[in-house]
C-alpha cells in the first residue's frame, strides 16, 4: 500500500511514459522481428497447383473488348448478347439509388447484368462471384478477359461451385442492389428489383477493376466498410497467384521493398501500414468488395495499374490469375474461417495480427485508466486520513456524543423530512448529480449534432447559401453551441474531478470497443486523445487557458480543420472548400455507404469530448 502511495505523485510521468511506450510499440510493429510472414492456413485452397487452361490470346480478348465497348450500343445489351452466345444463363436487374444527399439530390437508375455458369459437378448449393464494375457506365477492360474465361468455363467439367459473372453499374450501389436482392434485404438508399435467378450461397467473391487496356501490376484492395477485412487467406491466394504468373503485386501501391538497411525497411513497411490504416479510419470501402464483406462474403478487389514505363504484362496473364483464383476458391470445402480476420498489412508478404497490434493500444488506454484509478485511490487516501484525524481529535468526546447523535437522528424519524432537508444547507450539488447532468446534456448535444443535417435545406433557404456550405455551418454551429451550453452549467472542483475520472474511464472503454470493430480508428483516436486528456486534470487554475486550448485542439471540429490543413498541402486558399468538402463527405458516406463514422462522431465522440471541455472550465484552486 505504501508503495502505491509513493507512486501516486508520479502517476503523470508513468502515464505519459505508457502513452509514448504505446506509440513506440506501434511504430515497431512493422519491424522484421514482429511482423509475420503470410502463410496459408486453409490447405484446401491449393493455390497454383492446377494447370492453367486459359487459352485465349491477347488479340481475342482485345476483340471481345472492342465488341462489347461498341459506342453505338449499350454495354449491358452487348454483354447480354455475348454471354447468351457463349451459353450462360443471363439475367438483368434494375435498381434505383440516391447518390447525393446534400445539394443535387435525385434518384438515379441503374442496371446489373449477370451470367451464371452452372457447376456440372454439383447441385447449385454454393457459388463464387466474379464482379466486374462497369466503370463510368461504359468500360472496364476486365470484361474481355472475364468473358473469355466464361466461354472456356462452360466447357470445363471440374467446376464444383456455380460461377456468377456479375457486371454492376454505378460502383458500389450496383453491387449492393444485387447483393441485397440476392439475400432478400432492403437497405436505404438503394432499392432493387427481385432477382430472376440465384445460385447457391455465395462462398467468396472478387472484383476485377481494369481501367486501361494494358496492365503493369496489380494493386490489391482489401478495406471493407467500418473496418471490416476479408480473410487473410483470400489475400494470400491472390498475392501468390499474381506472383506465380509473373506479375508485380502491391497493396495500397506499396511493393515489398528490396533488400535494404533495417531503417529503410521499417520505414517503407510502416508507410504501407499507415496508408492502409488511413483508408480504414474513414470507415468506407476501397472497392466493390466491401459490399460483399458486409454480407459475410470474403472478397477482394484486383485493381490493375498501367504505367507505360513498366511495360505491359498483357491480358493473358491477368486472365490466368483470375482463373487461378477461381479454381482455388472452387477447391474450398468450407467457408473461409482458418486464417486471420483481424490484421494490418505492412506489405503483400507480411501481416501484423491482432495479438501484436492490440498491446500498444492497450498501453495507451491503460495510461488513461491508470490516471483514473490513481485519482480514485488518492481520494480514498485523503478520506481515510481525514477520518483518522477526526477520530483522534474526537476520541474523548466521542463516547458521550454518539448516544446523543443517534437520538438526534432518530428524533427526526417519521416526522417531516422536508423541513429538515431545507435546514441542511447544501448549496453544492453532490458530484454524482453534476456528473449526471453534464453527461446527459453532452449526449443530448450529440443527438442534436446527429440530427442537425436534417435542417440543411431549411438553413440554405433561410440564409440563401448552397447546401454543402449550409450543412457545414449547421454542424459547426451546433458544435460551438454545445460548448457554450455545457459550460453554462458550472462544475465544482469536486464535481469536475469526479467527472474527470468518469470521463477517462468512458474514454478508455469507448476507444477500446472501437478498436475491436475498427482498429485503425481506435488507434487514431487514442493517439489524438489520450495524451491531452491525461493532462486535463482539474484542480489548479494556473494553466487554465493552456488547458482549454489543448482541449479545444482535440475537439472533433479542430481535428477536422487540422486534417484539412494537412491535406491541402500548404495551399491556404483551398482550406475552406476542403473543410466544407470534408463535412459533406463524412455525412454523405454515412448516408449512402452506411459508414458509421459520422454517427460515431456525433453520438459518442463529441459528447465525450464535451465532457472534457466541461472539465476544463470547472472551478479550481488558484495556485499562488
Amino acid at each position, binding site marked *: 500500500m505504501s508503495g502505491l502511495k509513493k507512486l501516486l505523485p508520479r502517476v503523470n510521468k508513468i502515464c505519459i511514459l505508457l502513452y509514448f511506450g504505446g506509440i513506440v510499440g506501434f511504430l515497431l510493429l512493422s519491424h522484421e522481428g514482429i511482423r509475420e510472414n503470410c502463410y496459408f492456413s486453409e490447405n484446401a485452397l491449393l493455390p497454383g497447383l492446377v494447370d492453367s487452361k486459359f487459352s485465349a490470346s491477347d488479340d481475342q480478348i482485345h476483340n471481345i473488348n472492342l465488341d462489347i465497348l461498341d459506342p453505338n450500343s449499350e454495354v449491358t445489351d452487348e454483354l447480354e448478347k455475348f454471354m447468351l452466345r457463349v451459353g450462360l444463363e443471363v439475367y438483368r436487374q434494375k435498381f434505383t439509388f440516391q447518390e447525393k444527399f446534400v445539394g443535387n439530390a435525385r434518384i438515379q437508375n441503374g442496371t446489373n447484368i449477370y451470367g451464371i455458369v452452372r457447376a456440372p459437378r454439383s447441385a447449385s448449393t454454393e457459388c463464387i462471384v466474379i464482379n466486374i464494375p462497369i466503370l463510368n457506365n461504359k468500360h472496364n477492360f476486365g470484361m474481355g478477359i472475364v468473358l473469355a474465361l466464361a466461354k472456356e468455363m462452360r466447357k470445363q467439367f471440374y467446376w464444383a461451385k456455380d460461377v456468377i459473372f456479375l457486371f454492376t453499374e454505378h460502383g458500389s450501389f450496383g453491387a449492393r442492389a444485387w447483393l441485397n436482392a440476392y439475400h432478400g434485404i432492403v437497405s436505404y438508399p438503394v432499392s432493387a428489383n427481385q432477382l430472376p435467378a440465384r445460385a447457391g450461397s455465395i462462398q467468396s467473391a472478387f472484383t476485377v477493376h481494369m481501367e486501361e487496356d494494358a496492365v503493369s501490376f496489380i494493386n490489391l484492395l482489401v478495406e471493407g466498410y467500418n473496418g*471490416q477485412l476479408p480473410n487473410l487467406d483470400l489475400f494470400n491466394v491472390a498475392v501468390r497467384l499474381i506472383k506465380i504468373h509473373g506479375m508485380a503485386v502491391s497493396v495500397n501501391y506499396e511493393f515489398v521493398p528490396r533488400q535494404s538497411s533495417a531503417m529503410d525497411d521499417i520505414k517503407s513497411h510502416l508507410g504501407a501500414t499507415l496508408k492502409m490504416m488511413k483508408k480504414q479510419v474513414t470507415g468506407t470501402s476501397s472497392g466493390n468488395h466491401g459490399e460483399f464483406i458486409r454480407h459475410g462474403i470474403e472478397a477482394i478487389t484486383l485493381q490493375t495499374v498501367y504505367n507505360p514505363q513498366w511495360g505491359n504484362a498483357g491480358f493473358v496473364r491477368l486472365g490466368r490469375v483470375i482463373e487461378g483464383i477461381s479454381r482455388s476458391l472452387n477447391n474450398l470445402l468450407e467457408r473461409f474461417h482458418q486464417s486471420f480476420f483481424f490484421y494490418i498489412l505492412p506489405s503483400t508478404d507480411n501481416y501484423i495480427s491482432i495479438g501484436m497490434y492490440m498491446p500498444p493500444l492497450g498501453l495507451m488506454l491503460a495510461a488513461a485508466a491508470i490516471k483514473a484509478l490513481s485519482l480514485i485511490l488518492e481520494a480514498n487516501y485523503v478520506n481515510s486520513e481525514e477520518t483518522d484525524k477526526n477520530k483522534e481529535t474526537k476520541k474523548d468526546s466521542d463516547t458521550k*456524543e454518539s*448516544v446523543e447523535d443517534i437520538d438526534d437522528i432518530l428524533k427526526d*424519524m417519521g416526522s417531516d*423530512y422536508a423541513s429538515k432537508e431545507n435546514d441542511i444547507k447544501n448549496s453544492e450539488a453532490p458530484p454524482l448529480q453534476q456528473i449526471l447532468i453534464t453527461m446527459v446534456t453532452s449526449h443530448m448535444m450529440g443527438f442534436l449534432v446527429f440530427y442537425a443535417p436534417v435542417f440543411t435545406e431549411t438553413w440554405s433557404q433561410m440564409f440563401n447559401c448552397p447546401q454543402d456550405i449550409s450543412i457545414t455551418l449547421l454542424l459547426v454551429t451546433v458544435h460551438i453551441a454545445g460548448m457554450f451550453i455545457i459550460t453554462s452549467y458550472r462544475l465544482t472542483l469536486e464535481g469536475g474531478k469526479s467527472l474527470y475520472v468518469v470521463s477517462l474511464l468512458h474514454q478508455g472503454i469507448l476507444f477500446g*470497443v472501437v478498436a475491436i470493430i475498427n482498429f485503425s480508428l481506435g488507434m487514431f483516436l487514442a493517439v489524438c486523445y489520450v495524451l491531452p486528456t491525461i493532462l486535463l486534470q482539474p484542480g489548479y487554475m494556473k494553466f487554465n487557458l493552456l488547458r482549454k486550448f489543448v482541449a479545444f485542439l482535440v475537439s472533433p471540429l479542430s481535428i477536422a480543420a487540422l486534417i484539412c490543413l494537412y491535406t491541402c498541402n500548404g495551399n491556404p486558399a483551398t482550406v475552406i472548400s476542403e473543410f466544407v468538402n470534408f463535412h459533406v463527405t463524412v455525412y454523405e458516406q454515412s448516408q449512402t455507404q452506411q459508414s458509421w463514422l459520422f454517427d460515431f462522431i456525433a453520438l459518442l465522440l463529441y459528447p465525450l469530448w464535451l465532457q472534457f471541455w466541461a472539465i476544463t472550465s470547472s472551478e479550481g484552486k488558484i495556485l499562488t
Partner: protein
Amino acid sequence: MYEICALFVGIGLRMWLFRMPRVLLWISSRPEIETPLTSWGRLIEGEALMRNSQSYQNKHSYHGSTLLLALISYLNLNAPFLVEILFIASDVISAVALYLFAQKFLRKELKSQKECKEKLFKGVSSILIKPEHVSKVPTIICALYMCNPFSLATCISKSSVTFNNLFLALFLLSAVQGSIWQMAFYVALSTYETLYPVQLLLATGLCAWKYQEKPSTLKICYLKSLACFTFWMALILTLSFLCEPTTSSLLSHYKFILSAPDQTPNVGVFWYFFTEVFDHFHTFFMCVFQINVLIYSIPMSIKLKSHPVFLVFMLIAITGIFKSYPSVGDASLWLCLLPLWSHTFSYLRYPSVTGAMLLTSTILCPVMWHMWINAHSANANFYFAATLAYTTALVLITTDTAMAYLNWHVRIREGLKPCVAGTSEKAVLRLMN
C-alpha cells in the same frame, strides 16, 4: 415529487421508444434481452399457432406459461393497443411497489435501529441509517427502475421478464407488510412463470416471522406460508389447466426451464457450456448447473435469518444471474435495489472496478455479437467472453454487497475500526455476525 417526475419520464421514454421502429427492431433482436423463454416474438408465434391450429399443444416455439399466452392472445385479439399499455403499466406498478417497499423497509430498519441502540457500539453514528436515507433512497430506486436502460429495453422489447419483475416487486412490498397470503400469492405467480422463485418460500417464512403484526413462531410462519403457497399454486395450475387441458403442456414449460434444450446465446452461462459438452455428460452437468442456482438459498437463509429482505435481495440476484435463460431484465430489478444498502456502501471493496466491469461487458456484448454474427470475423468465443465478463461482474457485485452488508453489521456492534490489541493493524474481517 421527484419520484412522480421519474415515473413520468419513464413512461414518456417508453412511449417514445415504442414509436421508434428501428430501435425497437434492434432491441427485440438482442439475445441479451430476449431469451427463448421470454421473447415476445416467440409469444406471438405461439399465439398464431394456437389460433390457427385450434390446439394448445403447439409448443415448439413458445415455451412460456399458458396463462400469459392466453392473456396476451386475448388482448391482441380484442384490443392490441392495450398490450403496450400493459407493459408500461406493469413497469409503473413495479416502480411504485419498489418505492413503497423501500420506504416501509427503511423506516422499519430505522425503527429497529432506534429500539436496539443500547446494543450498538459507541461512536458509530456516522455509519448508521439516517432519516435522509429514508427520504432519498426510495426515490432513487423508483427513478432507477423507471429510467435505467436494462428495464427500458426489457419493457419495450415486450419481454415477459417485465411481469416476473412485477411479481417480485409486489412480493417485496408484501414482504415488509408481513402478509403471508399476499407473499405466497406473488411467489406462486412468479414460480408459475419462471420456476426458480420457488426458493423465495424460504424467505417468505422469515419475512412473515419478522414483519408480522401478531408475532408467532418461525415454524408456524413456515407452515402457514407453505400452505398458502400450495393453495395459490394449485389454484393457478388449475386455471392454467382449464386454459389448456393437458398435463403435458403444464410440464413442458418447466421441463424447458430445467433441461434448457434451446441453446440460443444469451447472457447466461448455460448455452456455451452445453453446446461444447459431450452428450453423455449432458445430464450430469445440467443437474450441477441447476443445483447451482438453488443451492445458495439454504446456507443463506440460515446466515441471513434475521435479515429476510436482504435474503430476498440475494436470492433474486443469484436467480437472475445463474438461471437457465437469464436476460438483462432479470438483473435490472436487483441492480435497482442496490441503493437500499447505501448505508453499507462505504464497506464495498471495489465498487469502481465492478462498476466499470459491468459497463464494459454490457457494451461489449452487442459489439461482440456484431463481430460474430454480422461481420463474420469473430466467433462464438468472443461473445461468450463478453457474457462471461458480464456474469462475473454481477457475481462480484452481489458478493461485494453481501460482504459490505455483513461487515456493516459487525461494525455497528464492534466499532468502526477494531484494533488488534497492541498493534495499529486493522483486524481482518471474518464473515461472522
